[in-house]
């Protein structure tokens, strides 16, 4: 029977399509990290003093901290002195328009399905493209500006809107929140910034596409989204990286803030290179801090993530439900195969009255991978009539993978209503035979079962993204069936 099970597992394997590297001349710092490097990054970016101070404080804090040991993942100790903290494709001169971006970089994004040139750009999605450490282009900027929406690279925002950055940066994820957040706060190089003014529904989806290109460069990007009163934005994030034998560190921080009656919908499809499926060599360490603060009353933050890549994922998109009547949601699909390890989930912090949260997590583990859900629902003493719904389903493919769930509840008052459902299932050879007996290929059978398993999460994604996510999961299953 073991060979049978393996053949189901085989069906999950695939070749990584985005594993190519681009040859561009880049401006890369020597490896290593000290105060001088932090100062040099700030200088390179021509930052105001408050930013330099923010970085230096974070760096000092980081020096006193330790890597977290509690996640259910194993990896050799990271040598933080063996990473370069800044790499940018060398501009011919100062980037004033796309014509000055290295055409190789534009080609790279086009290959990834993200055309940036004016005539080719995607119609309904504004894109900020980040290549290694810097943002190379942001599309539809002007059109968004007409309704007062600011969408630009983080570096530009520091220059053009320093008061907004100073007011909000670090208010959701404090400098010393955790080891990687502290590191990010010290050395982050770029990312995206969004400001939606009051009473504004964003006319299009906003999106950032991250691409790691250089080996041995860390990617530390920073995203800050502020959605003012009665406004709405849907934001998408995508990412890929080339195939290297060494591990690369990605330690991003994302902060979201919603004011009264505002809503942010943040969707991620993560497909970083996961390492060699046979040997486990290489791949991205994805150590990311994502958190949203529902600061205003009746505001809402909704995280949807489809995690299909990275050697190790350590990520808990969370919501601080501060405003009365605010709502936090977390929808997640995490697929692990090969030797991937994922420890992911969410934290819902109920602070205001009548706050609600819902969590739907779907973990799929195949091959030798390990997939853990870790979730915390914390209810403060003033958070009366809080409600939480948690559903946590795991699917195992083959006998060698594992799934774990770690739900935690901490409550400071008795009016909490909580509902928890959990299940573990398996794609069985009998199910696949049933499909085949009806003339449906094994490959389609697996894709259909997986899509069925994930549909509660997929339906939260914007249309195009849902299609892409389904394709991605199916692609992970391709090549395999035989």
């Amino acid at each position, binding site marked *: *029977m073991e060979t*049978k099970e393996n053949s189901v597992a085989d069906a999950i394997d695939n070749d990584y399509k985005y594993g190519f590297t681009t040859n561009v001349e880049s401006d890369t710092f020597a490896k290593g990290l000290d105060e001088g490097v932090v100062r040099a990054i700030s200088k390179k970016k021509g930052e105001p003093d408050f930013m330099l101070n923010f970085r230096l404080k974070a760096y000092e804090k980081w020096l006193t901290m330790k890597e977290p040991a509690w996640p259910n993942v194993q990896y050799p100790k990271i040598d933080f002195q063996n990473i370069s903290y800044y790499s940018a494709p060398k501009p011919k001169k100062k980037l004033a328009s796309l014509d000055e971006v290295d055409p190789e970089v534009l080609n790279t994004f086009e290959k990834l399905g993200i055309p940036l040139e004016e005539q080719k750009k995607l119609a309904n999605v504004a894109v900020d493209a980040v290549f290694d450490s810097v943002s190379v282009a942001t599309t539809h900027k002007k059109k968004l500006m007409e309704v007062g929406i600011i969408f630009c690279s983080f570096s530009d925002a520091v220059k053009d809107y320093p008061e907004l950055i100073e007011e909000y940066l670090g208010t959701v994820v404090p400098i010393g929140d955790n080891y990687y957040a502290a590191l990010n706060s010290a050395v982050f190089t770029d990312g995206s910034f969004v400001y939606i003014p009051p009473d504004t529904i964003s006319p299009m989806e906003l999106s950032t596409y991250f691409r790691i290109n250089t080996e041995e460069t860390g990617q530390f990007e920073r995203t800050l989204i502020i959605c003012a009163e009665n406004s709405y934005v849907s934001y998408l994030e995508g990412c890929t990286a080339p195939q290297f034998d060494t591990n690369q560190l990605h330690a991003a921080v994302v902060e979201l803030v919603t004011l009264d009656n505002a809503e942010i919908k943040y969707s991620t499809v993560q497909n970083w290179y996961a390492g060699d499926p046979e040997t486990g060599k290489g791949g991205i360490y994805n150590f990311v801090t994502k958190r949203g603060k529902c600061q205003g009353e009746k505001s809402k933050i909704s995280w949807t993530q489809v995690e299909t890549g990275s050697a190790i994922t350590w990520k808990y998109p969370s919501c601080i439900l501060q405003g009365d009547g605010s709502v936090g949601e977390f929808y997640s699909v995490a697929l692990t195969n090969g030797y991937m390890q994922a420890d992911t989930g969410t934290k819902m912090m109920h602070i205001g009255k009548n706050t609600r949260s819902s969590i739907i997590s779907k973990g799929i583990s195949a091959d030798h991978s390990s997939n853990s859900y870790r979730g915390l629902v914390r209810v403060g003493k003033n958070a009366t009539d809080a409600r939480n719904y948690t559903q946590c389903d795991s699917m195992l493919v083959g006998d060698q993978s594992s799934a774990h769930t770690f739900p935690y509840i901490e409550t400071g008052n008795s009016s909490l209503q909580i509902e928890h459902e959990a299940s573990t299932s398996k794609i069985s050879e009998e199910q696949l*035979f*049933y499909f*085949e*007996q*009806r003339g449906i290929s094994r490959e389609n059978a697996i894709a*259909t*079962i997986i*899509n069925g398993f994930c549909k509660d999460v997929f339906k939260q994604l914007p249309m195009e993204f849902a299609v892409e996510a389904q394709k991605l999961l199916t692609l992970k299953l391709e090549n395999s069936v035989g």
Partner: protein
Amino acid sequence: MLEIKDLHSAVEGIEILKGISLTIKKGEVHAVMGPNGSGKSTLAKVLSGHPAYEVTSGEVLFQGKNLLDLSAEERSLVGIFMGFQYPVEIPGVNNAEFLRMAYNARLLNEGKDEVDPLDFDDILQEKMDMLGMEDKYKERSCNDGFSGGEKKKNEILQMAILKPVLSILDETDSGLDIDALRIVADGVNKLNGDDNALILITHYQRLLDHIKPDFVHVISGGKIIKSGGKELAHELEAQGYDWLTTAN
């Protein structure tokens, strides 16, 4: 249409079918009976290409071609259908969508265009009406939480949609109530024309009252130990299998 010659098959190294030979012609209905654990379901699974069952020797020709060369999927596409004794549950996969996938797989194989959900619904509705199935079975997940009888009806619904050449129904009657048995049997009779053939695996005469077999075979210990006309089923109903197995 189907010619089975001295078929031997093993699962996990244990031989279960020990030399089955059987010839089935167009338009015929063959009943297969026999004690529990004698190899009836194994025969059905071997014919439909279940990967766990290894054919150790023997030959199977379907419409003159070697059936054993084909994968389970290909066997389905050339017109072999098995109604499962224990249909598996497929949570999360909408029943109507599953049926449409199966239907479209056939169309694609014949070089035709796929049908969209709306057009398919017309096809599906007609068959569901024939079987007296309520609409809710379209929206529910395939077999998921279906009662024993509902699962069996759903098998026949699939048969009606796919219009197979050869249907192997493995204990479709077990689990059906008296009315459902009649409805399902009527449906199967309608589907079974002069160009099709049917293998009915059953333990009970009552199914054979509705679907009249041309031949009845008794499998015991992985072999056909007796074949006869429909009167054999009556004898078995009256006397059980002992007289056959001990006489051997």
